[in-house]
Each structure stands twice: as C-alpha cells, then as structure tokens.
C-alpha cells in the first residue's frame, strides 16, 4: 500500500469533517432549535462513547461484578459527581479499575 497516499487521504477526510462547520456556522443565522440541539452534543456523544465500553467490554453485555470497566466506571462517576475534580476522577478511577481487575476480574 502507498503509505503517503494513505496518510494524505485520512488527513484530508478528517480535515474536511472538522473545518466546514467551524468556519460556516458562525457566519450563518442558525435556527433556534438547532442551537438548542447543539447544547446536547457533549453529553450525548461522550455517553455514547463510554457506555458500550463499560457494559460490553468484550462485545457482549457483562453486568457481573468481575467487569472492571463497569465497576471502575461507576466508581469514577461517583467521584466525579461528588468532587467535580477531573484530575482526581482520572487518577482514582484508574487506580480503582486496575486494583479491581487485579483482585477480582479475569
């Protein structure tokens, strides 16, 4: 495979997704409903990324306590909720995940 073409192709499509809206949207008068819809983007996208990883770590629904992704994720959620501290959530969440996996998970 031509690697230069591969990198160029990937770079081009990625940029063509990122750039147009950023450049155009502010210069257009957007309908009110669309502006309201865009407020939900971070919440909806982030949840849609993490929930499958937590609940289906191996491609199948796993609600057992041995699922460290689920346990660690719930723990991190509680820490984030109580402290609102991102760094603390990351460090403690990782620690709980690794510990749980070493002690209980496969």
């Amino acid at each position, binding site marked *: 495979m031509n690697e230069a073409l591969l990198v160029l192709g990937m770079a081009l499509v*990625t940029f063509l997704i990122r750039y147009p809206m950023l450049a155009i949207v*502010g210069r257009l008068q957007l309908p009110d409903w669309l502006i309201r819809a865009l407020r939900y983007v971070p919440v*909806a996208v*982030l*949840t*849609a990324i993490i929930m499958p990883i937590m609940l289906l770590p191996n491609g199948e629904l796993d609600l057992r306590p041995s699922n460290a992704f689920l346990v660690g994720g719930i723990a991190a959620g509680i820490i984030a*909720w109580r402290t609102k501290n991102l760094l603390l959530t990351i460090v403690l969440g990782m620690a709980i995940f690794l510990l749980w996996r070493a002690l209980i998970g496969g």
Partner: protein
Amino acid sequence: MPATRRSEFLIGMKDTFPLILGAIPFGIIFGALAINAGLSPAATMGMSLFVFAGSAQFIGAGLVGQGASLGVIVLTTFVVNLRHVLYSASLGPYMKRLSQVWLLPLAFWLTDETYAVVIRHYQREDDSPYKHWYYFGSSISMYVNWNLCTLIGILAGQRLEGLATLGLDFAMVVTFIGILVPLLVSRPMLLSALVAGVVGVLANGLPNKLGLMLAAVCGIAAGMLAEALTRQPPSEAIPLKQAAKQEMP
C-alpha cells in the same frame, strides 16, 4: 483581572492537563500498535502529525494490519470522525470573528478532549475577546503530547505489545466520565445521556462506529423533547456563573 492572550493560552493548557494524562497511554499504544500492524515509522508518525484523530488512527492502523484497501481505510476514517461535525457545528457560533489564519489550524486541532474543555470555556458568560487563545493553548498541548507519545510508542515498538491489555484503555472512559458527570445538571441533560447510552449499547454491533452517531442523535433528540415538555432549557438549568466556578483543576 481582565483576560489577556497569554492568560487565556495558559489557562487553556492548564485545563487540558488532566486530559493529556489520559491521552498519554493511547499515544504510546498507538505508536507501538501501528508498527506491529506493519506501518512504517514514517507513516505512523505522519498519521499523528497530519491526521491527528486518535480513534481513527487506531482503527486505520488495525485495518492496515488486516490488509484492508486504501479506499476502505479512508472511508472508515470518514465515518469514525463524523462526530466532529457535531463538535465543529457547536463551536462554530463562537468562531464568527476569526480569520482563516485561526480557523484552519483550530479546525485541524479539534479533538474530543479539546472540544470538551473549550466548549465549557466559550459557554461561560465573561466577555473575554481572547477565548480562541484558550482553544489554541488546549489544542497545541494535546497535539504536542500526542506526537511525543506516538514517537515514544514507535521507539518502544514491540516491547509494548502487552500494554493494551494492561487496562490503559480504561483511561479514555475515566477521562470522559470526569468531563461528562458535571454536565448532568438538568433533567433534559440526564435523559439525553440515558438515551444516548442505551442506544449506544444496543447499536454497538453496527459497523464503523455508526452506532455512536445513531446514539448521539437519539440522545440529542431526547434531550430536546424533554426540554420542550418541561420547558426547562439547559441554559436556565445551568446558571453560567455557577458553572464558571466549577473550574477544572
């Protein structure tokens, strides 16, 4: 103290620091995996330098390893990165006054992490004219870090084969939870997350992360519906001054 270019730039870097920690294992694993998948060090580095999209790079390298064609990989990259349309549309209204000199690099540097940090900053009520410097500080630190970590991964090569199974893949989950949870302050927001999560799990089998887009769209629709029914727009539910106090560390 009024915001200056310099202060915005530095705060942008500081607010992004925890996300950089979360991205370090990914960058290193990407470098190592791409080499193992058969990409040359130059192409691996080229992806991080010119594509700069973590999950698309992972999938791209994986597809190279499976012998996929160039067209399939580029198309997959497109679909995997589609969520950035939502990000850039959401940031777009704040980019009104910026020239192309700013727009082109800021668009190139748009990632999940930078979006999550920067959109909070833009939504604050202060009228700093230099918020694009905050975006710049956030994105340049993500970019430099990602490329350094890729380089380390390339150099470490095969010795890191076991890293992915060590559970560092959980770093992304925990990072996103830390960003997400403080945003869940109104019922429409909660419902939006719930629906996006459930649909995301149910649609997980769809190829090329299409399930992610479907879940995001359903989540957004659910939030808007709840908002229309309860007449509780998120802007009223989140007093902006209070949100500003919840500074990231």
